[in-house]
């Protein structure tokens, strides 16, 4: 029979991963639920998953491509913005959806126990599915343009894509749950999140390639752990992008550290946050 020991003293590194594994069905159910619930009682239903990124990308084409005349390194503009937007939304989604884990679920957390980490992991999964759906659109465009010889994807390196998504997912979740852990105490951080994430987008080569910025600015952008991932992603997908080993390995290290720290803090806060919310 299952034995549970609850003690006032708990090691900081006791992450209860075995227990988490027991609850894997719950992760999947939460993922499905958030998916299902968000398109219930809407006219277009899951079609929004396509309409939304498409409209945003078209806006980018008009705004950044035609008016601001930003370069896309020779890649067809729609494809460039659509694919960059997909990856950025995945990352931003991981941050924002996790940033309010504790406050959004206070009601549920206050009544029943399950490993709280289930929530962040399932929201990363559901963002991943969103990303996958957007990728279908990107693929259609990609094959079309590749057939016409306008882009040269590095097909044989695509096995790196899942790793890249894993890294971004970890980074996004880490940042998100650190914020959510702090918001149990400091409510004002919540306001900062939306603002911060949109600023972060401009500090990341999403609507422009890294190759167009000045050297000084590029040195600055190297500190942004999302930047090299974005460039690598476009390199694999579209055949353009500047990837250097140093900043990429830094970004990987930062992601790992943030995710680990996030889980530690989360685990700590989770024990008693019901008393402060």
């Amino acid at each position, binding site marked *: 029979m*299952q034995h549970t020991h609850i003690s006032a003293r708990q090691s900081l590194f006791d992450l209860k991963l075995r227990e988490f594994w027991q*609850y894997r069905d719950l992760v999947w159910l939460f993922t499905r*639920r958030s998916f299902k619930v968000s398109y219930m009682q809407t006219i277009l239903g899951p079609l929004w998953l396509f309409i939304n990124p498409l409209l945003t990308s078209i806006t980018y084409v008009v705004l950044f491509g035609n008016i601001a005349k930003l370069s896309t390194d020779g890649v067809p503009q729609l494809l460039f913005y659509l694919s960059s937007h997909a990856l950025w939304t995945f990352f931003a989604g991981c941050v924002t959806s996790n940033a309010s884990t504790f406050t959004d679920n206070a009601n*549920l957390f*206050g*009544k029943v*126990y399950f490993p709280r980490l289930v929530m962040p992991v399932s929201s990363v999964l559901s963002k991943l599915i969103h990303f996958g759906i957007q990728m279908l659109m990107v693929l259609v465009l990609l094959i079309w343009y590749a057939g016409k010889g306008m882009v040269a994807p590095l097909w044989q390196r695509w096995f790196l894509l899942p790793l890249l998504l894993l890294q971004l997912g970890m980074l996004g979740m880490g940042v998100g749950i650190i914020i959510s852990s702090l918001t149990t105490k*400091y*409510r004002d951080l919540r306001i900062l999140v939306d603002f911060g994430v949109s600023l972060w987008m401009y500090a990341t080569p999403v609507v422009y390639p890294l190759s167009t910025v000045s050297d000084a600015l590029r040195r600055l952008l190297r500190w942004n752990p999302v930047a090299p991932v974005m460039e690598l992603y476009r390199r694999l997908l579209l055949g353009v992008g500047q990837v250097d080993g140093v900043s990429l390995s830094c970004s990987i290290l930062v992601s790992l550290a943030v995710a680990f720290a996030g889980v530690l803090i989360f685990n700590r806060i989770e024990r008693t946050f019901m008393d402060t919310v």
Partner: protein
Amino acid sequence: MQEQELALRIRGLKKKYRLGVINHSTLQAELQSWWAQKRGREDPNRRIGTEAKTDEQSFWALDGIDLDIRRGERVGIIGANGAGKSTLLKLICRITAPTEGEIDIWGRVSSMLEVGTGFHREMTGRENIYMNGAILGMSRAEIDACLENIIDFSELREFIDTPVKRYSSGMFVKLAFSVAAHLHSEIMIMDEVLAVGDMAFQQKCLSRMRQAADEEGRTVLYVSHNMNTIRQLCDRCIVLSHGRVIFDGDAERAIAAYLNESLGDNDVDMDLTVKPHFQKNASSGVSMTRLRLVDKVTAVYEPGEDLRLLLTLEISEPVPPLYFRLTLRTETDLGLATAWSQPLPMEHRGENTVRLILPIDSLAKGCFYGSIGVYRSDELGRMLSFDHITHAFKFEVSGLPVWNVDAHGYMHLPQIRAECET
């Protein structure tokens, strides 16, 4: 006690809550305090007149609980509001962590701290069953195995694929309870869930819980203010007061201990403003403020003595003639008898004192609780309550030593007319 027989072991459990505003609410204030401290200045966010740092208002919701619960026991937990009942359950359910002490649990815990835990309004009944099961840590296969039982028990087969937002509150409770009662958990925790739902379903739930304990060896922890359901369900009962266990044992005696504790000992002058009133609406115009037992030092009555009360009322607006009601309850909180007064016109507003005299020569012996109420009568002769206090006072009738309450009961009845049949 053998470890393998135990379902739950609690040692030295304490839980501290901070009172008042928890922490500084903004990061700015926190930084300000920290910066001031660094420079050796006064903390600008500290309340004036309090000591730095150490002075933190807190109270112990649980103050050292030790408990062993064997497998298959049905344990009731009672206590006044704020005694620590819900905190104890929350710690056992791992919703929050203890400040000190340890809990060992053998088996899975399913909690019904509130109805429909984890239900999502947009999802169908069936989906919610899966969700709820998964929250308890069950796998899909395990839930599949008991899905049919749950649907049958809930009496909601036709509606099982309807989103639960279309359910009535009664249906919602039925589904929620059915899920909790059938999912594979070794320990069931219930907090006042039976308050909703129709009578027939309540009875069904109680017998289901008893069955779960007796036949499947599941342990039941049940918190309620309803002494009758405690009496029906539990074979052991724990009384909590101010975060400590003050009684642990048989349910009837626990109920007596709880009532005794909540009322103080045979008081003769009671401030009713601090007791829980049962008022239909707060602005009813009449409220009871003070109750005295006339000419008594302790609330002990000789057989044949009258119960004489002085009741102080606060009347804020003109009222029709008032009817007074006294209901006597036994030591274990069973209703015994009710008496009404004639209508009494109340002329003055403000404070009024009423003398109530009730002959209690039919009470033979024992401890009794008195509930007191003020009513008015409507055009149809129905009684409408202004103010009512259950367990307002307590008294004892000393009685004859040979009278045994368990064997003879609480009351004398009038003499039997015996006649020879010719």
